[in-house]
């Protein structure tokens, strides 16, 4: 592959390489000082302001919209309603399937959920548009509403046979098992509640469209806009250099974007649409509510004989989202007999979507609570029972783990937490009015692989640039790509510039599924090595190079300087060398696509759909990240208030490219898990399917005071199968298992088993 294979470091922080160093985020200062320009802050001349008008019924039709009063309001430029033909075509979905039946109608007359957009009002100012929107007189024909998964009229839903997993004879083994624990677990609707709400600015120049919109996937979102408007893909540019949190909510283009861009085209004027905080709760669905009946059968010693899961999750009446409640269940423990089935129940909600560790999170809540119940039933320690049922290989795929350091996670977590001092009996530890409980649960997240593309430029001043369309949603893409390039190029980290978040730049997959770091470090490393090799080849061969006559057959690039390996020749900075040989730059673009995707169609599909994704068991191994959470809760014996007092979590995520950022991701996931366990629930009005706590005052997220001291421990080792540099996914695994760890701790504190999230004081007072 390379001309000159100079030795490269593949170490961790301890060996001083850029990869593995504990560096602060490159974008941190920009964000803290307000210098980072988010999508809606983009200065664009001549903006008009759009306001979305949501339906206030849960199901039915828009009978009529009287726009007269709104039209007469000052500053109003345009009103779009279901009466307007926006002339849009359907876009391709992530499976690379494009609907062929008729136009795409983002403002339909039929209402499938409360909060669905029914009109867009555009005016010269936001205030004018807001006021005009209130003057619309909307008449509805209301239909019957199915408000949620557990509502009486929701029914059982339809089976998802493709998700059924079975081995052995689980029902018979369960019936025969001497010890059985069976229970039903519930998780509610939860929301991303990202700091930066949805919204966009759309600007047309002729038949070219630029969209500034927060994005986890610029290429795919740009493709949607292009297809809606019947444009060649290169005519749409989607720009998203900074994102104020995505958590899964910003991977796709949505109806509101289509409506706003259509308005901009009609007006011949750029349009800004800020989706309001309340509207965010219906702009993109949160985590679907789930219900799981879970039964474990075991020996008297707590050795699992059977697991039977019957689950259900909600979706909308107009789209399919499967919150896979069996995602973690078959992976966690060795069990000879297993059966999992899931049903999907359509209700009147916006179609739910991916929220940090979709499927795995509710799945872990049930299995990790149930195993704790089993431990109690057989009188075993919760840690011990996990070791007794340790899965030495993937029980479902029957493949060896690539790496699974769960034993180490349990051991090191327990040690740091002081688990050995735990008293077995519930309600046996207290501090005044505070009942103290210690709980444990584990989590997992699959290694997902895909392909990426990057461009690396070495510039005449000796600095370098890394350019790709991948996004940084706060997880650290800027930083780790600079680290990767620095190490491969031998140019200091501080001298690497990274450009991201633009669909006009080289291709990348979605910043989702905890895979972007693994994919893009691989692509950047490949491009950077190629650029370095090109530079060295020029240094050795160019007639004007000072190395031309040194007789060296290889050169070393380190700290921005080039020298001969024996250190006997000249030492020249990169910039100087480029000057001598008369080059302004060296520019190399590389991708990691396999041969069969090296076609225009293949590339386009790889950057804009999920069809090139490889799952955790696609090769010879089963590959996952793992974690173990140890929690201390304090429950007020009279009030039932629950506070998490401290947490220790140990993680196996393979090699860490930047431990500081990895720890921050883990902690962020854990904090989100605390919200899931104790606070978060979309409250739905059963009469009209409306989420009525749709703001950050009433949809409760953890505040600083709710977040305890969290200690995270890295027990991973490089996993050569998982990614080019040995890392597994970091971003999502942290939330998985937090809720059951807290629920188990609440049980230990109070003797009350709560199987419905969030666990609030009502259940304990």
């Amino acid at each position: 592959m390379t001309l000159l294979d100079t030795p490269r470091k593949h170490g961790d922080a301890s060996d001083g390489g850029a990869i593995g160093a504990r560096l602060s985020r490159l974008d941190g200062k920009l964000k803290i000082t307000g210098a980072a320009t988010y999508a809606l802050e983009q200065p664009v001349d001549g903006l008009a302001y759009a306001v979305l008008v949501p339906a206030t019924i849960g199901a039915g039709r828009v009978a009529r919209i009287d726009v007269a009063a709104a039209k007469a309001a000052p500053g109003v430029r345009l009103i779009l309603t279901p009466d307007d033909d926006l002339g849009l075509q359907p876009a391709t979905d992530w499976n690379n399937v494009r609907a062929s039946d008729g136009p795409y109608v983002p403002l339909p007359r039929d209402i499938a959920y409360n909060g669905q957009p029914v009109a867009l009002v555009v005016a010269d100012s936001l205030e004018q548009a807001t006021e005009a929107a209130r003057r619309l007189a909307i008449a509805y024909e209301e239909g019957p509403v199915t408000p949620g998964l557990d509502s009486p009229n929701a029914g059982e839903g339809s089976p998802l046979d493709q998700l059924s997993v079975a081995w052995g004879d689980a029902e018979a083994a369960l019936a025969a098992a001497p010890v059985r624990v069976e229970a039903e677990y519930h998780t509610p609707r939860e929301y991303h509640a990202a700091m930066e709400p949805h919204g966009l600015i759309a600007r047309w120049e002729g038949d070219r469209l630029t969209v500034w919109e927060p994005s986890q996937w610029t290429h795919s979102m740009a493709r949607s806009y292009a297809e809606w408007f019947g444009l060649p893909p290169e005519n749409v540019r989607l720009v998203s250099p900074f994102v104020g949190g995505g958590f899964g909510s910003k991977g796709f283009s949505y109806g509101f974007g289509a409506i706003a861009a259509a308005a901009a085209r009609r007006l011949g004027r750029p349009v800004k649409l800020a989706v309001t905080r309340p509207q965010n709760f219906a702009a993109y669905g949160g985590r679907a509510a789930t219900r799981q009946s879970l039964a474990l059968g075991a020996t008297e010693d707590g050795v699992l004989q059977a697991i039977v899961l019957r689950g259900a999750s909600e979706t909308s009446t107009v789209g399919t989202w499967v919150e896979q409640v069996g995602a973690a269940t078959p992976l966690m423990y060795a069990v000879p007999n297993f059966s999992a089935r899931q049903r999907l129940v359509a209700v009147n909600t916006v179609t739910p979507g991916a929220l940090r560790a979709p499927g795995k999170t509710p799945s872990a809540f049930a299995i990790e609570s149930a195993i704790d119940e089993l431990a109690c039933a057989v009188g075993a320690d919760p840690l011990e029972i996990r070791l007794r049922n340790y899965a030495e290989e993937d029980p479902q795929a029957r493949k060896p783990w690539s790496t699974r350091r769960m034993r180490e996670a349990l051991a090191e977590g327990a040690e740091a937490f002081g688990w050995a001092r735990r008293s077995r009996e519930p309600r046996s530890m207290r501090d005044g009015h505070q009942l103290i409980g210690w709980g444990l649960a584990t989590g997992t997240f699959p290694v997902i692989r895909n392909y990426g593309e990057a461009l690396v430029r070495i510039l005449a001043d000796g600095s370098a640039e890394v350019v790709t369309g991948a996004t940084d949603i706060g997880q650290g893409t800027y930083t780790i790509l600079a680290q990767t390039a620095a190490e491969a190029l031998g140019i200091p980290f501080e001298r690497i510039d990274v450009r991201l978040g633009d669909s006009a730049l080289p291709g990348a997959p979605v910043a989702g599924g905890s895979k972007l770091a693994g994919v893009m470090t691989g692509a950047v490393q490949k491009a950077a090595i190629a650029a370095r090799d090109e530079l060295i080849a020029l240094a050795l061969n160019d007639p004007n190079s000072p190395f031309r006559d040194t007789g060296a057959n290889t050169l070393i690039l380190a700290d921005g300087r080039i020298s001969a390996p024996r250190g006997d020749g000249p030492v020249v900075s990169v910039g100087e060398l480029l000057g001598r040989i008369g080059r302004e730059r060296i520019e190399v673009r590389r991708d990691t696509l396999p041969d069969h995707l090296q076609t225009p169609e293949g590339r386009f599909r790889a950057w804009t759909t999920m069809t090139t994704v490889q799952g955790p068991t696609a090769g010879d191994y089963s590959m996952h990240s793992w974690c173990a959470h140890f929690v201390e809760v304090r429950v007020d014996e009279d009030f039932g208030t629950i506070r998490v007092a401290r947490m220790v979590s140990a993680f196996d995520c393979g090699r860490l490219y930047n431990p500081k950022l990895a720890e921050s991701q883990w902690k962020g996931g854990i904090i989100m898990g605390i919200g899931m366990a104790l606070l978060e629930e979309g409250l739905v009005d059963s009469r009209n399917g409306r989420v009525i706590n749709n703001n950050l005052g009433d949809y409760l997220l953890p505040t600083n005071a709710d977040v305890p001291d969290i200690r995270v421990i890295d027990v991973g080792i490089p996993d050569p199968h998982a990614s080019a540099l040995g890392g597994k996914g970091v971003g999502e695994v942290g939330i998985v298992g937090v809720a059951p760890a807290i629920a188990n701790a609440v049980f230990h504190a109070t003797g009350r088993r709560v199987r419905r999230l969030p666990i609030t004081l009502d259940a304990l007072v």
Partner: protein
Amino acid sequence: MNPFRYRTAADPDAAIGAALGGATFIAGGTDLIQLMQEGIAAPDLLMDINGIGYSGVASDLDGIRIGALTRLAEVADDPTVRARFPLVREAIESTASGQVRNMATVGGNLLQKTRCLYFRDRAAPCNKRAPGTGCSAFEGQNRINAVLGASAHCIATHPSDLAVALVAADAEVILRGPAGERTVLLESFYRLPEDRPDIETVLEPGELIVGVWLPIAAAARRSRYVKVRDRASFEWALASCAAAIATDGGEVLEARLAVGGVATKPWRLARSEAALVGRPFGPGAIREAAALAAEGAEPRGRNAYKVPLLVATVERTLMELRGAG
């Protein structure tokens, strides 16, 4: 937001005059602006009263006068308030966040609107916001709603923490209107919802709150405010209790109790107080007083937990005061 005019009042009379003409006062704006953003309040004329004076805390031998435009943070930091009225300081320090307390005023706090989810959702029927449309909470998501003082027309709680502490402290509000100043006991300032939940106080058209009078009382020195909520900070009360006790030789001389988060107005517990006075300040009397707090409580569904929670909160508050004696 509706188009509106914004003016600043140079003195109280200008403000009062404007209000008689339909203007809405704005102080810290921490509640009003939210209501305007959601289209729940739509004033034509906003009259900024921050410049009319009435800001600051002044104390003399009889009591403390707090100007209506004093920021909550300033009240909580006042040395006399801290020494003489711990319950007021604790109520404020458990209110909102530091940022909000730097902005929010005492007058605005007493007049903030309920957190009932339906009141704040313009699409929902709500008798308090739109009289005669019905009460969505009655059979809806009413986990945070009231179990005391409700009517068939409204079950919304009064959200203020400070008001609960002030009611327990026998505070008076000083009002100023076209006819001059008058003083009303804060407890009587608030109305029960009955069949007009939209009329929340006895304020007359044009009237301003200009201050709060806190009479010095022995009991208030030994006082507490205990607030129970889902998350550890930045949330209104699910249940709270303000209590002040004076004892002599272990016997209760004076007891003042009020609860919040559970009632349609800051709720004084006269019967619980009576159960304490003249008796030894011990677990028996405390438990009895706490049980009496829930007398007449009527849960409406998801808020049933508030009945035992209310009792537990009163009991804990009193037990802590006993310990602090």
